[in-house]
C-alpha cells in the first residue's frame, strides 16, 4: 500500500481497540446510496514505473532558446537557491501557525518582506500572493478599501498593462461593482497617453494603475503619473518588475509622494518558468495602508526571555479571523516560492541584481539594434525600454514565429490578438541568459526568413 505504513498486525490491533470488525465499518455513517463503486482510474504505478513514464513525457517537451518574456522571464537561477529551498524542513512544513516550531519559515518570510520593501522602497510587504495578475487584482480591491474619500470605485487601467493581467482583474473584481476604465497608449512612444488622463482630472477616480515597465517593455512616465494620482486623490498602484527595480527608480520614490501600493510578479526572482507556475505575487504598501493589506504578514517580536523571534501577525485582517469581512480570501499563498526568492535575492545582492538587470537591458538593446538593421523589420515604439521591445515585420508574425521555432528558437509573443492595431508585431525579450551568439543567431534567422 503506497505511503501507508500499516502492517496487518497494526490493522488487526487497531480494529480490536475500536471494537469494529473492519475498516469499512468506520464508514457506516455515510448513507449507503451515496457510495460509489470502483473508480475508473489507471492501476497503481511503482515509483520505477512512473519515473519511466515521466521521463518519456519530457521527451515530448521541446527545448527552445528563449526570447519570450511577456510576463515570465528566463533568468539564471543559482544552484544554491533550490538546493536549499527543497530541503524537507522548508518543503514539507505548513503555514507557520505554531511560531515557536516554525522560526525557519518565519524568519525567511520576515527577510523576504524586508528585501521586497527595500527593492520597492515601500514601507512594508506582505508574505506573498498567488502571482502577478492576482496581485494586481488584490491591489485594486485594496485601493478601493483604502481610498475612503473616493466613492466612484473607478479604476484607471492602462492598456499598457499586460492583457492577461487585465483579464484576471476583470474576473476577480468583476462582481464587486467596480468600474475599470481603460487608458489608451501613445502609438508612437508605446507609453500611456498622458493626454488621455486629462479627461479624468478632477473626477472621482479611486485608483490609477501604473505599470513599470509596461507590457511593451516601454518605460512609463512614472513621476508624472504618480503626481497625477496624488493630485486627483487616487491611489497610485505601481505594477513593477522586481528585476527592473535594481536599475529603475523604485515606486516608493515615484513623483513627489511615491506610489501607495506596489505589486507585481515575483517569478523573475529565482522561480523557474515551469509552464506558468507556481510563481508568486508580491505586494508592498505604505505603513498608513497596512491594515488594508491582504495576505500573511510576519512580524518580529520577542519571546518570554526577551529573545527576538518571529510570528504571524495582524491576523485580524485575514479570513480565518475576520471571515466574510477579511481583506482577502487568500489562505495558502506561495511560501516556498518566496523562500526561493529570498535566497535568490540574498545571493545576488544589490550588485548582482543590478548586473542582471543591466545585462538584460543591454542584450535586448543589442537584439533590437540587430533587428532594426534588417530590411523589412521596424521597431514599433520610440520610448525607452528595459528588457523587452516590440518589432514589426513585413511578413506575418506567425510565419516568423514558426520559422524561428523550426530553428529551435522561441521567438517572442505575437501581439496581434490583443493589439490588432499594431499589425504583425512581436514582443521579444533577451535576458542575461542569452549570449551575443544567441542574439546574432536570432537576428540572422529573422533576416533569412524575411529574405525567403
Amino acid at each position, binding site marked *: 500500500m503506497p505511503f501507508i505504513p500499516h502492517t496487518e498486525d497494526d490493522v488487526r490491533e487497531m480494529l480490536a481497540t475500536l471494537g469494529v470488525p473492519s475498516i469499512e465499518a468506520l464508514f457506516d455513517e455515510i448513507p449507503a446510496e451515496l457510495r460509489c463503486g470502483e473508480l475508473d482510474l489507471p492501476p497503481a504505478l511503482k515509483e520505477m514505473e512512473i519515473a519511466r513514464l515521466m521521463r518519456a513525457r519530457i521527451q515530448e517537451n521541446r527545448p527552445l532558446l528563449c526570447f519570450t518574456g511577456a510576463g515570465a522571464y528566463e533568468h539564471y537561477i543559482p544552484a544554491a537557491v533550490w538546493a536549499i529551498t527543497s530541503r524537507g524542513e522548508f518543503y514539507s512544513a505548513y503555514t507557520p501557525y505554531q511560531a*515557536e516550531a516554525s522560526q525557519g519559515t518565519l524568519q525567511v518570510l520576515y527577510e523576504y518582506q524586508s528585501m521586497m520593501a527595500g527593492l520597492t522602497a515601500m514601507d512594508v510587504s506582505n508574505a506573498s500572493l498567488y502571482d502577478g495578475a492576482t496581485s494586481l487584482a488584490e491591489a485594486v480591491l485594496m485601493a478601493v478599501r483604502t481610498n475612503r474619500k473616493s466613492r466612484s470605485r473607478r479604476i484607471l487601467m492602462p492598456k499598457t498593462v499586460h492583457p492577461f493581467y487585465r483579464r484576471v482583474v476583470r474576473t476577480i473584481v468583476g462582481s464587486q461593482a467596480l468600474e475599470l476604465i481603460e487608458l489608451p497608449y501613445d502609438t508612437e512612444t508605446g507609453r500611456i497617453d498622458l493626454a488621455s488622463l486629462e479627461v479624468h482630472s478632477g473626477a472621482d477616480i479611486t485608483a490609477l494603475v501604473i505599470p513599470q515597465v509596461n507590457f511593451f517593455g516601454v518605460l512609463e512616465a512614472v513621476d508624472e503619473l504618480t503626481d497625477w494620482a496624488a493630485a486627483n486623490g487616487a491611489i497610485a498602484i505601481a505594477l513593477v518588475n522586481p528585476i527592473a527595480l535594481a536599475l529603475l527608480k523604485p515606486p516608493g520614490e515615484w513623483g513627489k509622494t511615491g506610489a501607495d501600493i506596489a505589486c507585481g510578479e515575483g517569478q523573475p526572482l529565482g522561480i523557474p518558468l515551469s509552464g506558468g507556475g*507556481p510563481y508568486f505575487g508580491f505586494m508592498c504598501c505604505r505603513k498608513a495602508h*497596512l491594515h488594508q493589506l491582504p495576505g500573511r504578514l510576519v512580524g518580529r517580536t520577542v519571546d518570554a526571555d526577551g529573545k527576538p523571534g518571529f510570528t504571524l501577525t495582524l491576523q485580524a485582517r485575514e479570513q480565518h479571523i475576520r471571515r466574510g469581512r477579511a481583506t482577502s480570501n487568500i489562505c495558502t499563498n506561495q511560501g516556498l516560492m518566496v523562500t526561493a526568492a529570498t535566497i535568490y535575492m540574498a545571493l545576488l545582492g544589490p550588485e548582482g541584481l543590478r548586473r542582471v538587470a543591466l545585462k538584460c537591458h543591454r542584450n535586448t538593446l543589442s537584439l533590437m539594434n540587430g533587428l532594426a538593421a534588417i530590411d523589412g523589420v521596424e521597431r514599433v515604439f520610440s520610448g525607452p525600454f528595459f528588457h523587452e521591445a516590440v518589432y514589426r515585420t513585413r511578413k506575418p508574425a506567425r510565419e516568423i514565429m514558426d520559422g524561428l521555432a523550426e530553428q529551435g528558437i522561441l521567438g517572442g509573443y505575437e501581439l496581434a490578438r490583443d493589439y490588432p492595431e499594431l499589425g504583425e508585431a512581436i514582443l521579444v525579450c533577451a535576458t542575461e541568459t542569452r549570449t551575443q551568439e544567441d542574439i546574432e543567431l536570432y537576428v540572422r534567422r529573422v533576416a533569412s526568413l524575411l529574405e525567403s
Partner: protein
Amino acid sequence: MLIFDRSRTGRAAHAQLPREAGESPVIPDHLLRKRRPALPEVSELDVVRHYTRLSQQNYSIDTQFYPLGSCTMKYNPKVCHELATLPEFLNTHPLALERAGQGTLACLYELQEMLREITGMAGVSLACAAGAQGELAGVLMIRAYHALRGDSARTEILVPDAAHGTNPASASMGGFQVREVATGPDGNVDLAALEQAVGPQTAGIMLTNPSTLGVFEQHVQAIADIVHKAGGLLYYDGANLNAIAGKVRPGDMGFDVIHLNLHKTFSTPHGGGGPGAGPVGVNDKLLPFLPLPIVAKDGSRYRMLTEAVRPHSIGHLVTFAGNVGVLLRAYVYIRMLGREGLERVAEFSTLNANYLLKKLVEAGFEPAFPQRLAAHEFIITLKRLAKERHVTALDFAKRLLDYGVHAPTVYFPLLIPECLLIEPTETESKDTLDRFAEVMAAILKEAETDTDRLKNAPHSLPVRRLDEVGAARRPDLAYTPE
C-alpha cells in the same frame, strides 16, 4: 541573526554575478534608481549556511508528526518533487505550452480527467492557484449561472457556522452576502435552520463534507434537496476529500461545483504556506462557466481552450495556466496510488483518526462529538481543563512542541471551545499514534500537577513562547538598517 546582519559592503556571491555589461543603460536619468536597494551583501557560503540553519528550526513532515487538523499534513513523496522538477518541465515558457510543452500538457490533461472521475463531476479546470481561489471561482460560477438565467435576486450564500474562514471570505469576494447556518448538537447542519434560511435570495450553499467538525454530514442529500428546491446551488469545499476519496463522490452527493486542495488530498507539499493548487469541478449545469484555461485533446495533440470556444467562462483567475509544477506533483501522486490506492487513503486516514480518538478518550480526553464516528480528523475539547485548571488549548499546543510533535489546529472550528482539531493522516503509523497518545496523556498529567510547565511551554525550542500581542501592537515587519 538576520541575513542583513551578515551583510558587509562590497561582499558578494561573485560566481552568481553576471559579468559587468560594461555599459550604462540607455534610459533617461530621471527614471533610474539612485540608491541601491537595501539587499544584503553576503557570500554564497553565508547564504547557504544561514538558510540551511534556518531550515533546521522548522518542524515539518520530514522531521516530525504534524497532526494539524484540516490541513492534511501527510508524507510528500520525494519522487513527486524529483519528477516535477525535471529541467524539461521547468524550462517550458508558459506561452510555449502548446508549441513546446506537449509532454506537460499530456500530464495536465490526464490529471483533469482523473479528477473528474474522482469527484464525479462533468468538467474540471486546473487553473486556480489554491483552495481559496478555487472557492472564488466556484462562487463566480454560481453567480454567472444565475446571471445567465436572469435570476438576479440571488444575493446570498449560505455557510455553516463551522466553515473554514475562506468560505465566507470567498463568498463576499464574489459579491455575495453571507448568511450563517447553525450546526446541530450532533455536528450535522441544523436542517430546520437551513429551511428557514433558504429562499429566493439564496444563490447557493458552501459545504465541507466531512465537515470541519470531523464528521460526515449525514443529511447532505436533504440539504441538497432543500437548497436545490429553493433554486440555489451546492458548493463543495474539497478540503476534507482525503476522508472519502474513492468512497463517496461530491458529484454523487448532489454538489454542483467543487474545488480540491491538491496540497491536502493529493499530497503536494505545503511549502511553509504554499504553493497549493485548487482545481475546480462542475456538473453539467455549470460546465459553460468553468475558468480558463482548460486542456483539450485533439487526436494526439493537446491545446488550451480559450474564450473563443468558451464564451460563458468566468474567465481567467491567474496569469497563465495555474500552478503547473504543483499539478505535475499531484499527477505523479495519483498515478502511483491508482484506483486501489486512492480508496485506501480514505480508509487508513479514517482508521487512524478513529483509533487515535479512541486512545485519547481512553486517556481521559473529551471528544466534541462522542456519539459520532470520526472522519479523517476529530475534535477534542479542553473546556473542562480550561475551567478547572486554567490550562488552555494553546498551552497544550505549545507543550506538545516540547515533545517533538507539531501541535494540532487550535481554536478552530470556532464553535467548539478550547478545541484541538487533530488529523493524523494515513501516512502515519500506529507507533506514531501510540506515542502521540502517550505524550498527550503525559501532558494531561502535567496539567494537573505542574500547570506552569504548560503555561510556560515550549521550553526546548529555538525560542520560548512569543509575544504575539506585542507583535501586533507594534508591528516590526521589515528590517531597517540603523
